[in-house]
């Protein structure tokens, strides 16, 4: 597997990006409340066949980013700015109808909670074929055998019988597989998975991750993986973006990022989670405070109050985005010294 | 069980569930409901009517132009030719068939309506709470027995039940009216409170109190009950509307106070039947009063209920 991975790593830069997100900004403004910027100038590219990870804790804006890209944010109470160029068209400027035509056909999404993403009163078979009827003009008769194949493809046992089942008759893992089958129905070129395994048990999570990995390799679909779990990212993503309070604070190839995290937040996260492979008895180094301590990005580094590396400048100026020599992006005035990481 | 009873039970259970579903019960539930209510025109209209009615009922004896029991227009009543005196200076709505001022009777009648509605609801609430606490805190067999009784009561149409109770009473009167209407509210409150208390019973903070070794009485009264009261309070405003209509209905049928010196809208409506063709205004005014007041409470209660129900949010 590692051989195919490295092959792909080499292949990605030669082709142009499939999706290019530039300076995406989402501001929520609820009646009578202060506006809240959930996504604050996020930019990243996704190349065909590439898996890009967006990692961060709850409230960092990773899910809002995906919803904004899919045009799924509620109509009122928010403002979306920036560009998301997908094969030459800006997704953010499309009308509702144009976006509906693309959703499911060009870009498909997999959600965290498969039960609430599936229609409870319609059988799995109909739900999978509906996507094909809608986007590819197939008749239900033609679509049904294909739906069967899709279910089989995503590893659902006895797919003929499952076509007639309703969502509540399937287990959580099976529902997530059914949802993936629906997402794959029109062979989209980009798949967005928003915490697809968070609601699942770890052995089921392993199954689903293996399935996603296999699909990306076999079909050449690009995948945006949104998760809070650094372990999931480490095994799956080619490029990793770490988000904090609505901004990307560090980006890098997964091998470099995990081996030498430079941003204090990434570094802090990695040293605060207990690992199965770390020597026992080692004390965890937590990140102090909580997100409620954050400073506004406009005039400071949001992470500064919780940062062990914070300088005076971190509380006075917003750190700019900078590219490092090893192709890694960083938003920090005082990044962690690689030597220190090795010792820590 | 009848579908009628089922429908009522469902409605009650929905409301009970609404309170327990919220991820942060208590403080923020009420607070977030209030934030939405403040901007809800339906709620504001209901609130305005209700407040106006309550103020009117309290001050009516002082603003009524005449004593509702006295008959200043008695000499204008001609049983054969003109049984109901028309409007004249000082009597804008005219009099009734006994020469009493109609406006004064309508104004003071609001008092009776309020008294019956409020007391019936309070007694119904207390009775229902007692049963609900019993069922909700003990569970098991106690719960089964109490709830079966409650279900049987709910499956009988409430007005029919109230008639039966009022008709069985030794002598009709205001007290009988209040008791009859209170009894029909008991199962509603009981089921509602029991539902939301069972929700609380399963909640983590009650389990936490149990794990801590807190005494059962303290758990019920300090943790379960206060967190279950939200839907009960909403229901109480809805029940007030029903109580007012039911009280009017019972009085209309002569099951209320026989003493007509104390005016009451339903009773006035009932007495107006004789003259309904020639003098429909005698029926229209009290009927309008009943409708407007019941509407006020209903609008207020329904919008509160909606605000509490997570299914209708956003």
């Amino acid at each position, binding site marked *: *597997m*590692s051989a195919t991975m490295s092959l792909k790593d080499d292949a990605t830069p030669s082709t142009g990006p499939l999706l290019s997100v530039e300076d995406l900004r989402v501001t929520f403004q609820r009646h009578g409340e202060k506006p809240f910027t959930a996504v604050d100038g996020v930019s990243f590219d996704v190349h065909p066949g590439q898996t890009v990870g967006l990692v961060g804790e*709850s409230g960092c804006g990773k899910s809002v980013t995906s919803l904004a890209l899919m045009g799924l944010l509620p109509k009122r109470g928010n403002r979306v700015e920036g560009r998301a160029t997908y094969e030459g068209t800006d997704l953010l400027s499309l009308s509702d109808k144009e976006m509906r035509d693309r959703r499911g056909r060009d870009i498909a999404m997999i959600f965290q909670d498969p039960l609430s993403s599936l229609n409870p009163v319609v059988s799995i078979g109909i739900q999978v074929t509906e996507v094909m009827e809608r986007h590819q003009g197939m008749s239900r008769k033609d679509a049904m055998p294909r739906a069967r194949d899709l279910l089989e493809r995503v*590893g659902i*046992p*006895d797919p003929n*019988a*499952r076509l007639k089942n309703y969502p509540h*008759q399937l*287990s*959580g*893992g099976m529902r997530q597989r059914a949802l993936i089958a629906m997402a794959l129905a029109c062979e989209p070129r980009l798949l967005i998975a928003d915490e697809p395994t968070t609601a699942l*048990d*770890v*052995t*089921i*999570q*392993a199954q689903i991750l*293996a399935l996603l990995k296999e699909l990306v390799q076999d079909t050449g679909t690009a995948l945006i993986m949104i998760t809070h779990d650094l*372990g*999931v990212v*480490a*095994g799956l993503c080619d490029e990793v973006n770490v988000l904090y309070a609505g901004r990307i604070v560090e980006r890098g190839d997964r*091998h470099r990022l*995990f*081996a030498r995290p430079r941003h204090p937040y990434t570094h*802090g996260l*990695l040293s*605060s*989670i*207990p*690992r*199965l*492979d*770390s020597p*026992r008895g080692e*004390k965890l*180094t*937590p*990140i102090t405070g*909580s997100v409620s301590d954050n400073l506004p990005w406009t005039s400071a580094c949001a992470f500064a109050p919780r940062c062990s590396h914070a300088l005076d400048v971190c509380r006075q100026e917003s750190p700019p985005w900078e590219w490092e020599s090893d192709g890694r992006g960083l938003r920090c005035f005082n990044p962690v010294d690689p030597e220190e990481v090795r010792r820590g | 069980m009848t579908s009628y009873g089922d429908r009522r039970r469902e409605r009650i259970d929905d409301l009970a569930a609404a309170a327990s579903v919220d*991820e*942060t019960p*208590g*403080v*923020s539930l009420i607070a977030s409901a209030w934030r939405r209510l403040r901007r809800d025109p339906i709620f504001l209209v209901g609130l305005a009517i209700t407040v106006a009615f309550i103020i009117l009922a309290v001050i009516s004896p002082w603003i009524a132009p005449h004593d509702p029991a006295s008959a200043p227009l008695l000499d204008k009543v001609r049983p054969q030719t003109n049984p109901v005196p028309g409007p004249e200076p000082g009597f804008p709505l005219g009099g009734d068939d006994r020469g009493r001022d109609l406006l004064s009777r309508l104004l003071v009648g609001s008092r009776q309506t309020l008294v019956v509605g409020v007391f019936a609801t309070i007694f119904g609430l207390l009775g229902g709470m007692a049963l609900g606490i019993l069922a909700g805190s003990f569970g098991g067999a106690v719960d089964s027995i109490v709830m079966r009784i409650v279900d049987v009561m709910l499956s009988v149409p409430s007005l029919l039940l109230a008639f039966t109770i009022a008709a069985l009473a030794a002598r009709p009167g205001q007290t009988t009216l209040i008791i009859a209407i209170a009894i029909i509210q008991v199962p509603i409150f009981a089921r509602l409170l029991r539902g939301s208390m069972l929700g609380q019973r399963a909640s*983590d*903070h009650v*389990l*936490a*109190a149990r*794990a*801590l*070794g807190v*005494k059962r009485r*303290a758990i019920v009264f*300090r*943790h379960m009950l*206060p*967190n279950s009261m939200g839907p009960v309070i909403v229901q109480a405003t809805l029940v007030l509307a029903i109580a007012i209509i039911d009280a009017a209905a019972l009085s209309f049928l002569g099951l209320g106070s026989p003493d007509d010196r104390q005016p009451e809208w339903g009773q006035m409506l009932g007495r107006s039947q004789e003259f309904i063709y020639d003098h429909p205004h005698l029926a229209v005014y009290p009927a309008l009063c009943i409708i407007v007041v019941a509407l006020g409470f209903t609008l207020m209660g329904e919008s509160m209920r909606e605000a509490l129900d997570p299914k209708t949010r956003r």
Partner: protein
Amino acid sequence: MADPRTSRTKAQAGDVLVDVRGLKVHFPIKRGVIFDRTVGHVYAVDGVDLQLRRGETYGLVGESGCGKSTLGRAILNLETPTEGTVLFDGEDIASLKGETLRRKRQHMQMVFQDPMSSLDPRQSVESLLVEGMRAHGLDTDKAATHARLRELLQAVGLPPAALQKYPHEFSGGQRQRIGIARALSVDPELIVADEPVSALDVSVQAQVLNLLEELQDEFGLTFLVVAHDLAVVRHISDRIGVMYLGGLVEESEAGELYDLPLHPYTRALMSAVPVPDPVLEDTREQILLTGDLPSPSRPPSGCRFHTRCPWRQPTRCDDERPQLRVVDVPGASEGHRVACHWVEAIASGDVDRHEVAAEYVGSGDATTPADDGSPFGPASVQEIG
């Protein structure tokens, strides 16, 4: 307050504080129009033997539906055990009721998964903390109570000003600290922590894990930590028990469990946990289980894991339920116990791994057997064994 402290110093660290024998918790599945009829059982905990030694942290790990939370609650008698005994300091908790049980709760406390829902939103922190002390007659002296409250807050790292605040004014991590302070308020010997960090943000989890460790050292507590996250459990525990469908399948010292997982389920579980290390993720061998967890209302016969086991053998696995036993595997210590008939053969490589065809299990919801096909639902299902 002085009593348990002195007894604790007298008691030998390492002797058995909690002794669980043959514990079963079965929840009846009831259906009926007027009178409820029991139509089956959910076998949440189905025969567990477990010893907690004084001063240790025992980690209970398993996937959802394996009964680990129920087991934790049953040990505290918050779920009434169907069968079996729970000896706490020599006294059987499982048979206690009413006031005697309530008094006993002083010695065994619980920390919950969701710190928001486990704190009454209408109670101030002070009232939350005093409540338990009052219930056990520990708040006799006003000044002493107040000193104790400050001491508790300090122990969990909250400022004294927190006393007047309400739960919603705190962040998730701080709420969990309040929950821990509440458990400590009655000076318990045992604390059962049910998923103590899984509701918290990743960056805050470490704070709470470290706090639990500090408190254990400071107060000589015995912990039972129930969690689904193997890495968390491994980090905090001295010994670990792995549960699958209501029973323990493996029990071992924490380090050894990672170095030498023996039960097929433990091996699969261990290999499924993602590690934030790309090199390791790419190279390590994963044992992917097929299919889903069977419904706990209809557990498979014999070894509960045989329907998904990649090492399943034609004999014994299907019809004979393996007991937890000390195994004869090189490197396995005395305390390493495994419930598998073939564990020695698997460890030595005499039994090979094979493919398993996934079976359709249906939704995990025990009350709606999916493939029943009967319009009456489970009421028409025959009594389940």
